[in-house]
């Protein structure tokens, strides 16, 4: 049997495989129900989240740090808390009296539930007070949120914390606490013990303790969010309410992002490509006027085009399932010219001087004739100068890419829109003189369109990413020289670029 057939057999055998699953348990776990419409998290909500997190962090910091900052709020709200306390102190008393008068279990339960509800109210008051304290300290924590989230935890956490405070304060309360504890033992409701404890805490007047409640509650919450090591039945019976799924799943911190495919939908993907390269320019200069132009021959003889450099930053747009890509960006190229002028020329010089003198026998001069003296000076030497043409372009190209033998091989062609051309350095403008191009414009400020094409060979280097080399040909059809410059100048370049593909998404 051929291996390929064996592979097909594997695909067939495993592709249609099924496993026995306890569907009822799964359904119970999923807790199916009405699904809300998919709600997209708008970008501005995301932005709103950032200041909220910052404010929340600040509030937490203040709360954690702030004995002093909180004490101010504490004094302000102390009276209200005391009032709340007074109102609620009557609750256990009522319960006690009820308990004393009625011994039946059902009535105990009733009173227990009442106590629980009232203690919940008290807790709400505490939470509201605490939240109002925090809000004065620029906190953004919502009272309702705190109330909803923390009630359960507060009820659990308080049990251990309050016993010590309780014993010191109120002996009458002690009895009621004991009764309440007894009550809680006999009933199934676990809440009543809370009422007494919160009261005793209020009597102690320790808002700091309350703050530590919130802190510890938050800590507990954060701890409980880590995935517990549970057994299979627990996992399957885990109740997930799909109705509230959107709100939960959009929470950036609570759920992993699952890549869910959507068929027949191709996506655009974007990549950022920094590129660097060198090129060899091939220059053509032509005498525009077809008559003797100074320095034309010298430039042809002595001017040499050096290698150019190219830097580019591109964005590449690729559509899934299409081998074609679109690339656009900004590019800088520099063409360098070097002129090694070897000059050897003669300049005539005319001065007025003695051209003839008559001298007597004893040596005295008799006549002196003055006139123009014509002389010739020959100059020889070497003078090396450079000039540079800087091109800022907007290249736009289309490419076709294919995966061949472990490499990404592509061809691309495009057009460069010239944004700006600048020339610097010194250009030979006569047989022996150079002109500074920064001061005198001999070239156009924009050269319009140029065309380029080439191939691209890329390879992925694992975690390093994708790199490519691209031999590229560029044709500049426009004359670089302006009207002042009588020598037309055009280029064709051949270069090699190296790029790195940074995938944005």
């Amino acid at each position, binding site marked *: *049997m*051929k*291996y*390929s*057939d*064996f*592979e097909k*057999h*594997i*695909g067939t*055998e*495993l*592709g*249609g*495989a*099924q*496993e*026995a*699953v306890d*569907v009822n348990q*799964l*359904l119970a*776990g*999923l807790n*199916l*129900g*009405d*699904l*809300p*419409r*998919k709600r997209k998290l708008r970008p501005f909500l995301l932005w709103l989240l950032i200041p909220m997190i910052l404010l929340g962090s600040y509030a937490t910091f203040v709360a954690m740090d702030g004995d002093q900052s909180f004490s101010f709020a504490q004094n302000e709200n102390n009276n209200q808390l005391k009032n709340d306390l007074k109102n609620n102190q009557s609750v256990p008393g009522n319960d006690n009296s009820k308990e004393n008068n009625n011994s039946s279990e059902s009535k105990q339960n009733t009173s227990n539930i009442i106590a629980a509800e009232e203690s919940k109210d008290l807790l709400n008051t505490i939470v509201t007070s605490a939240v109002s304290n925090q809000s004065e300290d620029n906190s953004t924590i919502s009272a309702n949120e705190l109330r909803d989230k923390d009630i359960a935890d507060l009820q659990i956490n308080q049990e251990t914390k309050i016993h010590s405070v309780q014993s010191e304060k109120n002996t009458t309360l002690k009895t009621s606490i004991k009764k309440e504890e007894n009550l809680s033992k006999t009933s199934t409701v676990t809440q009543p013990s809370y009422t007494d404890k919160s009261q005793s805490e209020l009597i102690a007047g320790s808002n700091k303790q309350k703050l530590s409640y919130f802190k510890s509650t938050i800590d507990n919450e954060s701890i409980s969010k880590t995935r517990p090591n549970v*057994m*299979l039945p627990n*996992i*399957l019976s*885990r109740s*997930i309410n*799909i109705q509230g*799924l*959107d709100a939960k*799943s959009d929470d950036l911190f609570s759920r*992993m*992002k*699952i*890549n*869910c*495919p*959507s*068929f*027949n*939908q191709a996506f655009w993907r974007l990549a950022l490509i920094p590129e660097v390269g060198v090129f060899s320019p091939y220059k053509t200069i032509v005498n525009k006027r077809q008559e003797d132009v100074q320095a034309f021959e010298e430039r042809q003889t002595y001017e040499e085009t050096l290698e150019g450099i190219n830097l580019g930053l591109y964005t590449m747009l690729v559509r*899934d399932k299409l081998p074609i890509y679109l690339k656009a960006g900004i590019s800088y190229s520099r063409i360098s010219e070097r002129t090694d002028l070897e000059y050897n020329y003669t300049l005539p010089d005319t001065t007025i001087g003695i051209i003839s003198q008559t001298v007597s026998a004893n040596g005295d001069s008799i006549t002196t004739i003055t006139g123009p003296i014509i002389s010739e000076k020959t100059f020889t030497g070497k003078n090396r100068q450079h000039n540079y043409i800087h091109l800022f372009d907007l290249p736009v190209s289309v490419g076709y890419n294919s*995966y061949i*033998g*472990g490499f990404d091989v592509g061809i691309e062609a495009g057009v460069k829109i010239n944004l700006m051309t600048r020339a610097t350095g010194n250009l030979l403008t006569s047989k022996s003189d150079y002109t500074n191009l920064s001061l005198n414009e001999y070239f156009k400020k924009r050269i319009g369109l140029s065309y380029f094409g080439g191939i691209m060979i890329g*390879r*992925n*280097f*694992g975690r390093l990413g*994708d790199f490519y080399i691209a031999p590229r040909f560029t044709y500049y059809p426009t004359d670089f020289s302006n009207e002042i410059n009588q020598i037309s100048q055009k280029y064709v370049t051949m270069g090699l670029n190296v790029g790195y593909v940074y995938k944005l998404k």
Partner: protein
Amino acid sequence: MDLERIIQGCKKGEKNCQERLVRNYAPGLLAICRRYSRDSESANDALQESFINIFKYINSYSGKGSFEGWMKRIAVNCTITFQKKNFKVHFEPDMLHDTSQHSEVPDVYSTLGKEDILSLLCELPKALYLVFNMHVVEGYSHKEISEVLSISEGTSRASLSRARARLIEIIEERQNKENQRVALLHKM
């Protein structure tokens, strides 16, 4: 109730349609989750997570293409994402020349059952096992594999080549052992 009705019902959030979907497809999806999970517990967990995502994203299913395939991919992606912490595997990016397609496999392998095949595949290194499964069994393209596993297409191809080569090695090793055993029996 036909599939189209179930899908429409699920899109509207009808409980009976959701239930029907779970009943119909949970066994198949669990088999997928099992293949990519370390143990049955995490497979069950991944299955539940898969259904949550299926119901969550069902509105994005356009109706074109196989719905079952769509769900299977969610299950695969979900399980792999779920297991990513466990799947700390290293992918070698180097290419290998794939000659496995020309290799011969003993005919007895054409009758291997699911469990035997799985035991055979389990001998592959984790990274190779993942890519092999995704490509051969699930029919993922290398581009899709590269996206799900956050590797390059080249690495995916290389891993598949390695997986095939290793699988043939494993088969040969097993065959040699079997031959030795038979020879020993004949001597006795």
